[in-house]
């Protein structure tokens, strides 16, 4: 009996001990997601350390969020988690020169009762240099994940706002548990955007106002300096605007000027010439005509990572009248020139990087491949995404290439990065690894097989998830010869009930199904792209809603009421 009691006591002790140890563990990591080790070794991979460098078979060792070494004879510590890199191609993580990722526009300040549109307060007029992108940024935004998925590891985020929106910041797209902030106040974000219905309302007013703000910041600095050294002077007026502009006037930080067209580029450069600030041009879309002007200005260049849409080109018909054909030819010429622009920038010897502001992440690699197919070298393409961006953002000492001591930002792909079928398998940011599903290479479909092999025509009930809640509706697909057409119903964003839209670009390739439709929300037409896999009457995929991000989309095919013949 006593023995039994003793046994019981020991058991209790053991259990208690076990319990207490789990309690202690739970206190340090309630999520249970803590990494076992922050040391990684990616072994025997093909490593491209910097743009223009040939791939070498090597192991990359990572610890403390830093690259500890690249080579074949590294001694790997015991705690290193090994990743077999034999079939992986490793590249430096991409850097996004300027982005709107994860940014939510702050609420417009309320207009005071005595509001005068000819002389509004700076805040209402869109002059808010004191604002910081950090305050508007959330790493949990689904667009952050979308951007990381295509290889971006560092972004310069820009605040949303008017002509002087505020200060940019540079962040890592790293683990949610880290702060991820690299540089605060990395630049001043400006544009030619006027404030509707008040001063300054147009680009011409914005330019005048920008000069005025700049000149008065200078004068305020002069007054303040004198005020601190001489007694008995009138107190200089310090405003949030002038205080926040001081770093720009002192040349400590650059102005990131959004300038998409040639004329806007010239206008930004004329302001720079006039006032003498450091300039980074961002969001460039049309620039071929002004390459020499850009070069002479010495401004940093961030090209919009996008190619023009080909709707107009595709709409051209062979049986058009001669007059129309002439016009078509001019549009085509203009389109081809637009695709070749990035290559011209490289040829002019202007080191440039990219901005993803206003760009859909899912289209980025296609845009890169198109630019490369139209004259941009792969070396310059990679440089634009890594080393050039690092130089323009002045973080080239810590990022941009795979070198000992640099931040562990890596892309691991299944093939040479810009190859057509290359897929990104892992992205490492700040020493944290993010895994992505890769699909086996599709085999070329044989005649009769592939297209149409999977049944998709019929009515599908679908559900979708988005930050706005879950939605549902009916997707109806009809076969039309060898193509598909159809409609989709969705929850009407501008009220209750369902709205219906035709679906377009329905493509069935093997079991991969994709289509698009347009949603009209508050007068704004948003294109929704859905893509995923069909498997015996069920569909699993993602829906990309314009630039707002991508969300899960699932559907089930209803049994047909018509008997199979």
């Amino acid at each position, binding site marked *: 009996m006593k023995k039994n009691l003793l046994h019981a006591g020991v058991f209790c002790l053991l259990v208690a001990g076990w319990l207490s140890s789990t309690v202690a563990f739970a206190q340090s990591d309630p999520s249970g997601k803590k990494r076992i080790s922050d040391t990684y070794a990616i072994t025997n991979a093909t490593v491209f350390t910097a743009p223009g460098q040939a791939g070498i078979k090597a192991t990359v060792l990572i610890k403390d969020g830093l690259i500890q070494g690249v080579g074949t004879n590294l001694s790997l510590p015991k705690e290193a988690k090994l990743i077999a890199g034999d079939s992986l191609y490793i590249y430096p993580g991409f850097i996004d020169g300027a982005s709107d990722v994860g940014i939510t526009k702050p609420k417009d300040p309320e207009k005071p009762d005595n509001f*005068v*549109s*000819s*002389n509004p307060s700076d805040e209402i007029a869109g002059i808010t240099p004191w604002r910081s992108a950090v305050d508007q940024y959330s790493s949990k935004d689904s667009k952050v994940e979308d951007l990381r998925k295509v290889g971006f590891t560092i972004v310069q985020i820009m605040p949303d706002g008017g002509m002087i929106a505020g200060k940019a910041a540079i962040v890592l797209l790293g683990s949610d548990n880290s702060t991820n902030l690299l540089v605060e106040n990395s630049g001043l974000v400006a544009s030619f955007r006027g404030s*509707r*219905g*008040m*001063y*300054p*309302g*147009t*680009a*011409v*007013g914005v*330019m*005048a106002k920008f*000069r*005025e703000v700049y*000149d*008065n910041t200078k*004068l305020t600095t*002069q*007054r303040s300096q*004198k*005020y601190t050294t*001489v007694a*008995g*002077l*009138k107190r*200089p007026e310090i405003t949030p605007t002038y205080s926040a502009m001081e770093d720009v006037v002192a040349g400590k930080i650059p102005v990131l000027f959004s300038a998409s067209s*040639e*004329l806007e580029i*010239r*206008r930004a450069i*004329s302001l720079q010439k006039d006032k003498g600030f450091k300039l980074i041009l961002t969001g460039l879309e049309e620039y071929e*005509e002004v390459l020499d*002007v850009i070069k002479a200005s010495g401004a940093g260049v961030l090209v919009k990572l996008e190619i*023009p*849409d080909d*709707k*107009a080109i595709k*709409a*051209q018909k062979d049986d058009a009248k001669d*007059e129309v054909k*002439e*016009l*078509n030819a*001019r*549009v085509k*010429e*203009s*389109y081809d*020139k*637009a695709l070749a622009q990035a290559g011209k920038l490289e040829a002019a010897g202007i080191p440039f990087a990219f901005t993803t502001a206003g760009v859909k992440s899912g289209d980025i690699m296609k845009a890169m491949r198109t630019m490369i197919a139209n004259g941009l070298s792969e070396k310059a393409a990679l440089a634009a995404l890594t080393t050039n961006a690092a130089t323009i953002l002045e973080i080239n000492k810590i990022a941009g290439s795979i070198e000992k001591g640099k931040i562990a930002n890596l892309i691991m792909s299944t093939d040479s990065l810009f190859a057509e079928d290359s897929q990104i398998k892992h992205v490492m940011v700040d020493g944290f690894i993010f895994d992505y599903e890769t699909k086996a290479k599709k085999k070329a479909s044989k005649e009769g097989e592939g297209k149409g092999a999977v049944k998709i025509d019929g009515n599908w009930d679908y559900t979708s998830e988005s930050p706005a809640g879950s939605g549902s509706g009916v997707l109806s697909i009809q076969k039309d010869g060898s193509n598909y057409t159809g409609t989709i119903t969705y929850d009407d964003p501008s009220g209750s009930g369902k709205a219906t839209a035709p679906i377009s670009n329905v493509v069935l390739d093997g079991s991969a199904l994709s289509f698009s439709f347009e949603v009209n929300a508050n007068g704004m037409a948003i294109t929704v792209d859905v893509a995923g896999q069909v498997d015996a009457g069920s569909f699993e995929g993602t829906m990309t809603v314009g630039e707002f991000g991508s969300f899960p989309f699932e559907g089930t095919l209803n049994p047909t009421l018509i008997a199979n013949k």
Partner: protein
Amino acid sequence: MKKVNYFLAALLGLSIQFASAQVKKGSVLIKNATVLTVTNGTLENSDVLVQDGIIKKVGQNLSAPSGVQTIDATGKYVMPGIIDAHSHLGLDVVNEASSPIVAEVRMKDVVNPYSIGIYRALAGGVTISHAMHGSANVIGGQNATLKHRYGSTDPAEIIMQDAPRTIKFALGENPTRVHGRGNGIQPRTRMGVEAVLRNGFNEAIQYKKAWGEYTTASSQKNSTALPPVHNERLQVLSDIIDGKIIIHCHSYRADEIYMLINVARDFGITKLVFQHTNEGFKVAPEIAEYTMGASVFADWWAYKMEVYYSTAYNAAILTANGAITSINSDDAELIRHLYHEAAKTQRYGGMTDDQALSMITINPAKQLGIADKVGSIEEGKQADLVIFEGHPLSSYTVPQMTFVDGVKYFDIKEDANDQRLRVSATEMVEPIMIFEGHDSRCMQDTESLFETTEALFNLNH
């Protein structure tokens, strides 16, 4: 070492040349034409020799220096390039309508050399246009004088850099509608317009004084003077008072015209031109005595209340009373046949050929402050020329060739179907408006300021 220096010098020299050679200048000899000099009468069977963009010689039996192209203009007419003193062509933005005074904005900032309207103007013989700010403000922005060097993509190359500064003013219904009725601020009436003007100029005088005092004080030893706040708006108004800028004022009624004359006299301002000036004929002697004249429509009126009391004899009456008078377009369509508009003064008022032609050449040149450079065919002037088939004041005339600085920018025989400099890569059809109705440009971008007023009173002009 010497070689290297020589090489560097050559390189620098080249690059300087490259920078200044941006504006093209041409040489040409036009033979056997009827030359309408405008300032020195009509010369039959005469030649005009242009070298490096300048009219070198006007006379008979001139021969072309080697390398200079000769154009046989037998039976044709040559006149100075037409000058439009009121236009909004080639501007990306017309109105910064948000404040009663926006003197600080510069239309030169938003010149768009790709504008197809520039080519169309050339096809109508117009070589210079005055790209003006709109008429939504009592004191609008500073204008740009453009030379129609179509094909240049650098705005600086189509701006006439040696033209003096000009600025837009506006009286009457437009500024009172936008600010007073639309936004509930001064000016709501013509009295308010005058108050805005006088207050503006008085503030500018104070502003200039404050900076003058600061500059004097800060040059003293151990000065503790603090610089005043910079205000470009008041600086520009101060420049107007100092005679550095020519005012071009949108106006219709005689009372408001006379009001501005009095304001200008009170502040010692003499560089003043009235635009539109439909009731100018009522105050023609005053305009002649105190201003640089009026730039009017030939026969366009009744598009709003303040423009009902008008006459096609306006230009003739102004001219007869000694006011410098020009005929303008204010419109992308009218600009293509200003020679017809000028001819109307012969039907209504019996103007002579030279008087009528002056209204679209030397007179607008005087009003823009460029009459020493352009506006007539005289030796030493810039070679802006048009060759016409038929007399330019005939209804049947057709412009054949247009030259700016001796460079041919329009030739009816080489007029391709599509003259656009740039084509969108993503749009099959780009909307291009020719006629948009009066005020569509003058009042562009002002809609947001009086949406409610518009809805309440159904005001379209």
